[in-house]
């Protein structure tokens, strides 16, 4: 019970910190603009959203792995880097809380922030419902997958944010790491790999990719293996964050 109260306190403070800076609003506006632009204007061919002939949000979700590549590291970069630079980490970790409560609390705050940004795309859902009869189950599934994927990117950003005091460095490293998570399952890369690697290797590499797992969500398939993939990526990354922070403190 105590643990939950501590996590809640930290999450609340961290969320408030996002909205205390204009960065949060800038982020949300950029995210919404990107979503709008790519969904309606860019597609396999121009205006794919309207030409698809069917009411769905396929052209919306397909871009998410790429939006998040830059946006999520920008949200996550300050989490620990700032805390270490200003010295508030010393304050936070000498409070009567465990370090994992602090890590989870801060992570949850950013994840909720991303959830809010995602929720603000609701006019798209209304639009497709007005234009036609989409399968709202598929759309919900897409949102869920997108949020889980954002959480996975975010957890990776937690690691890089714990590694350095410089937010910019954290940002760059996590973009690179997240790019790997995408490319491992990106169709051109898979084609290239299957040219010389055995199919089982290609499959193993693709299984590490967020794209492979996000694909099912987009199709409206809620497979527990995909959920487990994202959740375990999050848990593993937060665990690594804890190890890195402990390493800094031990000197």
């Amino acid at each position, binding site marked *: 019970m105590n643990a939950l109260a501590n996590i809640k306190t*930290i999450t609340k*403070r961290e969320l408030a910190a996002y909205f*205390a*800076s204009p960065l949060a609003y800038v982020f949300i506006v950029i995210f919404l603009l990107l979503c709008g632009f790519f969904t309606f204007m860019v597609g396999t061919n121009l205006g794919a959203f309207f030409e698809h002939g069917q009411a769905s949000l396929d052209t919306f979700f397909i871009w998410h792995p790429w939006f998040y590549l830059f946006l999520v590291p920008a949200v996550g970069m300050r989490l620990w880097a700032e805390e270490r630079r200003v010295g*508030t980490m*010393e304050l936070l970790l*000498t409070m*009567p809380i465990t370090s994992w409560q602090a890590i989870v609390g801060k992570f949850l705050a950013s994840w909720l922030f991303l959830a809010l940004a995602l929720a603000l795309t609701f006019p798209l859902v209304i639009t497709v419902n007005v234009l036609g009869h989409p399968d709202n189950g598929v759309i919900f599934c897409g949102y869920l997958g997108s949020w889980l994927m954002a959480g996975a990117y975010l957890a990776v950003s937690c690691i890089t944010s714990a590694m350095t005091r410089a937010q910019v460095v954290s940002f760059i490293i996590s973009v690179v790491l997240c790019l790997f998570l995408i490319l491992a399952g990106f169709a051109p890369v898979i084609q290239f790999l299957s040219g010389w690697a055995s199919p089982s290797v290609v499959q193993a590499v693709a299984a590490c990719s967020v794209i492979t797992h996000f694909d099912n969500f987009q199709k409206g398939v809620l497979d527990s293996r995909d959920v487990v993939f994202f959740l375990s990526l999050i848990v593993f990354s937060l665990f690594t964050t804890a190890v890195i922070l402990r390493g800094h403190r*031990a*000197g």
Partner: protein
Amino acid sequence: MIQVVGLTKWFGAKRAVDGISFSVARGEVLGFLGPNGAGKSTTMRMITGFIPPSSGRVKVGGFDVVEQPIQAKRLMGYLPENAPAYTDMTVHGFLNFAAEIRGLRGAARPRAVQRAVEMCFLESVLHQSIETLSKGYRHRTCFAQSIIHDPEVLVMDEPTDGLDPNQKHEVRGLIRRMGEKKAIIFSTHILEEVDAACTRAIIIDRGRIVANGTPTELRQKSEGAGAVTLRVKGVGSAEVSARLRQVSQVKRVAVLEEKNGSVSLRAFPASNANGELARAIGEAARGWQIEQLQTEEGRLDEVFRSLTMPDTGKKSET
């Protein structure tokens, strides 16, 4: 309340803290003195559980800081070096967060915040963002955070650093008053603070304790402690020093100053003086016109220098 036994910290191949042991009881204010880089902050970070010791133990209120960190941390308030605070928050928001995470619920929370605000004179900036505060106010905000739960143990790393003389005076008074009911450790490199606030002081140098005692005891370690200063009028310095040298309790005589017909001398005690030096010198000076006769208490800065800088040339840190 605080027991530190054999505390040691290695940073790579460098030993920052080297087998420190001491304890602090309720009602004591322990001053932690030492030159920069002596290991004061590192010791305090181990006491407050921020960094794990390489070896040795810390117990706070009976709880081992490594094995029962939550219980130990609950009893402690901590003001880290440079008084960090969440700059995006207001003073009130920050103190409210500190109270909440310290487990203060319901009506107890606003009461605790109010108390800390009053003690640290923060009313005028209560709803200002910490980012916009002057250094003194920012410092006091972090100070307020450390006492918000009225802790039994208070650990403060350079609590008067960066404050103006009035603020320094206020903070010292606050520490002294709170020290009556708490166990307090604070570090400083300002020697006057030892007299102003401490009941006991520890001097550390390169990770080791080199002196531990009350301010008076420490003073007595100085070379000048127990020496007697004599100023007489109308006699030459040669005559005075010749007569003082014949006093059996005097080891050495130094002429300090000779002007306007007065001469000042300092007589250092021999090992058999036993505090009788002033009386003996008073007798020897009979017949002269005595303007001053005073036993020196010794000086802390002298003790500090003699204990912490025996090899100035070799020190890597300043």
